[in-house]
């Protein structure tokens, strides 16, 4: 568990960080380090340079920014889990953050780091997808926004370009209700998700008018389950309607087996978690 040799730099500003990233081959951004350092210690990944953004001011807050809530790059899971703005506008993310890792990990790891790392069984990427978050990426060329639905590209791969730092995720103040459900590897909500689902739903005139469902732990990356919402929109959101819609959770998803679940089991769980997340989100929206 000893990483290969690497250089470490600790820039004092975002500009300095992006300029180092722009001019350095094999550089990797370090925030909380809860995913990056273990894979470096296992020598599965060996960057030449670590750019520690931990001392850059202005990245540690959760802020009300009018039509959305901004979560900075250095906001810890524990802060996301307990913040009143997140609880009000993005309950699914609060729940997902509260079930990420253990206490030590939640105090050190960052929400943006978890999303940028995009582990196939992580909690918060699914919540960000369901909530329709927008990712803000900064580089030496300026900043750009990436919709969550465009962000997760493949296993451990996002739309972030080399040289870009995920500086913020923006959660729209969109009303409705959201929820996250998972079955963890040790049962209950502990550990990585064997399967997890996050849902955001809004109702109008007693009917489901809009929403999103996203899965984690099941396929190669966190994925929107678009067929589910196609079925659910326009219904009354009853348990029967939710159950019928949840049966479409796996449309377009390649289910992968791992030590903790067969394809059959994960496929079943994805539907159960979708159903449970939707039921909670609808209850919260009412």
């Amino acid at each position, binding site marked *: *568990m*000893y*990483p*290969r*040799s690497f250089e470490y730099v600790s820039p004092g500003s975002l500009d300095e960080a992006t300029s180092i990233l722009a001019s350095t081959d094999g550089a990797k951004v370090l925030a909380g380090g809860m995913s990056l350092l*273990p894979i470096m210690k*296992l*020598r599965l990944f060996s960057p030449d340079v670590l750019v520690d953004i931990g001392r850059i001011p202005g990245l540690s807050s959760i802020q009300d920014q009018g039509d959305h809530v901004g979560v900075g790059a250095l906001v810890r899971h524990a802060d996301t889990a307990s913040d009143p703005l997140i609880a009000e506008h993005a309950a699914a993310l609060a729940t997902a953050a509260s079930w990420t890792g*253990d206490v030590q990990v939640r105090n050190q790891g960052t929400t943006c780091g978890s999303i940028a790392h995009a582990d196939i069984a992580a909690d918060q990427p699914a919540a960000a997808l369901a909530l329709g978050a927008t990712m803000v990426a900064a580089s030496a060329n300026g900043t750009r926004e990436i919709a969550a639905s465009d962000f997760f590209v493949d296993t451990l791969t996002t739309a972030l370009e080399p040289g870009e730092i995920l500086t913020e995720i923006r959660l729209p103040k969109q009303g409705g209700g959201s929820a996250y459900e998972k*079955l963890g*590897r*040790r*049962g*209950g909500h*502990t*550990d*990585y998700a*064997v399967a997890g689902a996050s849902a955001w739903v809004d109702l109008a005139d007693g009917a489901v008018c809009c929403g999103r469902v996203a899965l984690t732990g099941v396929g190669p990356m966190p994925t929107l389950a678009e067929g589910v919402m196609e079925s659910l929109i326009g219904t009354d959101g009853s348990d029967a309607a939710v159950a019928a819609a949840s049966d479409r959770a796996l449309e377009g998803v390649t289910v992968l087996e791992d*030590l*903790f*679940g*067969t394809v059959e*089991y994960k496929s*079943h*769980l994805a539907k*159960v978690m979708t159903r449970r997340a939707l039921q909670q989100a609808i209850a919260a929206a009412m």
Partner: protein
Amino acid sequence: MGGGFGVSTTSVLGGVVKRREDPALIRGTGLYVDDLQLPGMLHAAFVRSPYAHASIESIDASEALAMEGVRAVYTAADVEHLGDLVTQVAVGKLRPLLAGNQVNHVGEAVAMVVADSRYGARDGADAVDVDYEPLDPVIDLKEAASDAALVHEDMASNVLLAWEGGPWGDEEGIAGTKETIAAAKEREDTVTVSMEMVNQRLLPMPMEPRAVVADWNQGYGRFTVHSSTQIPHALAGGIAGTFGLSLTDVRCIAPEVGGGFGCKLNVYNDEILVCFASQQLGSPVKFTETRRDAAGSTIHGRGWVATATVTGTRDGKVLGYELDGIADMGAYSQNFTVAIPFLGLFVGAGQYSFPTYWRMACVHTHTMTTDAYRGAGRPEAAYYLERAIDAFAREIGVDPSEVRRKNYIPASEFPGAATHIGFPMDTGDYENNLDALLETVGYENLKAERDQMRADGRLVGLGLATYVEVCGFGPSALVDLGFSWAAYKIPSGFNGSGLVRIQADGTASVIIGTGPSGQGHQTTWAQIVSQQLGIPVENIRVTHGDTAESPLGIGTFGSRSAAVDGSATYEAANKVAAKAAKLAAHLLEASSEDIVFADGGAHVAGSPDQTVSWSDIATLAYQPHRLPEGMEGGLEAHAVFSPGNATWPFGSHLALVEVDGDTGDVKLLRYVAMDDCGNVINPMIVDGQIHGGLAQGIGQAMFEDGDYESDGNLLKWSFVEYPLPTSADLPSFELHRTVTPTDINPLGVKGIGEAGTIGSAQTVVNAVVDALAPLGVTHVDMPLRPKRVWEAIQAAQTNGSVS
């Protein structure tokens, strides 16, 4: 009953004294091996096999040796003269220090790289180029037992031996037992229930991995070795034997040890190899396991597959129990390896009196060695027995508590009761213990509550299991059964020792040869000595784990330290008390028979106003010219204690679980333990031991799985793949006690280190099977991870969905 947490500083046995170890551990000032930094210290890393079975065609270390900071690369050829790894029970293939022309499990050490830094050592190890020619591995236990392919080509069979009883070693008796059980099966009024069950392989994974620093001083001709070990004296002897030195030439120190659970009850090849490297290079050499090293190269536990069969009448009287199976030894035998199922044989029939035929074959496979892991053979034996008893009870429709009660060895048979193999037991009252549990939980009401929850559509189950264990080893006479530590230059069996020294200022040093890894000896031993001498606990310091200081001890394992070394220390304290009484009598001008010790000093019985302090007594002891004629100066005593038997603790456990039928998720709602470990020295420490033991048994039941893939790969290199239970996964345990003291040691204590583990896995599985019984599930193999439980539900269901 119960373990309160009201804290007092009184010294009386049975009182709660806060663990004196903890301030250093909590503040981070305790010294662990990896904290040690010696001048000029080098670091070792190992090149390990990625194959379960392969021939080594060549090893090219030239690139590694050319790297800056790499001092040496050693392979088998460099250390062949040192022989195989030292082993107590030398049955089967012994482990070479480094693999020669063949590797026999993933993780086997092929070469050792020594460098200036641990990073450099790792880089060097990665640069060693080993050319392997992969061979087919033997992994499956039944395949191994069939000898279809041999694990070691120079051995005639993969099967090393089989432990068999009936009466142990008595062929006629065994045949008679088999006949008796066969006859019972023939009877028309009997029912036979049989189940094949896996008791899966587990990885011990102590919080602190193993670590060792060896320092050879050429001038003194002496090794000083710090190691995270449970057996410092055996390690010293193992090193001395390997290098042709005397016991005085090797000093081993086990500083703080962050958990052991049996996996530090071996001498390991890395401990020998860093000694070798230190001698070769003239510098201290450190090796600290990574978690990956620990997962693949430190001993594993369990790994049994066996069929348990119960035959009995419909009223619950069991007429025969049979266990027939295979135990995985791994590729090489280490310290106890083949003896682990033997420990299971001791308690193969548990606390029951029915005829029992028990056979476990020990086989080599291309996997890491198995050896003692918390409980060591006894959790496996208890698991099979108590699962089978439960299945029998369910089959005949009799409450599982009744079936157990009907078949217990009655309390009236003690003293004089013996196990199914004819080994005598000390004390026991199983029915009283079971009754205490059932009364405490309100068993009938609890069953009614379960039934109500079931009626509400919930999958709720109650599980019961009872156990007897054998521990507190023990008798010096085990030497005559073949269990000596002679390979470690220790001729004795399992006897213990203690040394009590009154210092010149009247404080007391207690020096013991144990090797604790969290058991609280510094507290418990102070209580024992305080009780006998009236010296306050805070004026007693207990040291252990340094072979240069302490009398010979075997180490800490098998729930033995309090019963054996604790009793020795008790006797040493009594020797000190006898001499101190004479000294106090001299000072008080009284007769020594009238002296009593209390409140930090001594007085004449009935005259507590006139006292002499321990300081006064010590001053006299160290001024020989003032002593009465004929008395020697100094005030210390050493005692060796060899009990006449092991101890036999027992208990009854109950679990309440709920299963989520949609996901297979098991929730442990309640866990209640009624243990009987004889007298209790410190209730808080005993409760702590039970807490940890339960967590490990429940970990096996619900989470942990150290089994290899069919190609011999071990996909459990970290806690991502090998989930350990955490406090967040467990309920608040409800702990209770009955007290049946042993008569084989003066303290009346039996041992509690392993009881929680021995009693708990089957309790949880019985509860889950009870929860799923309405669906027709009769068995689920551990670990009861959601996937496996869900699959069992799916398999049992013929129609409809549970939810």
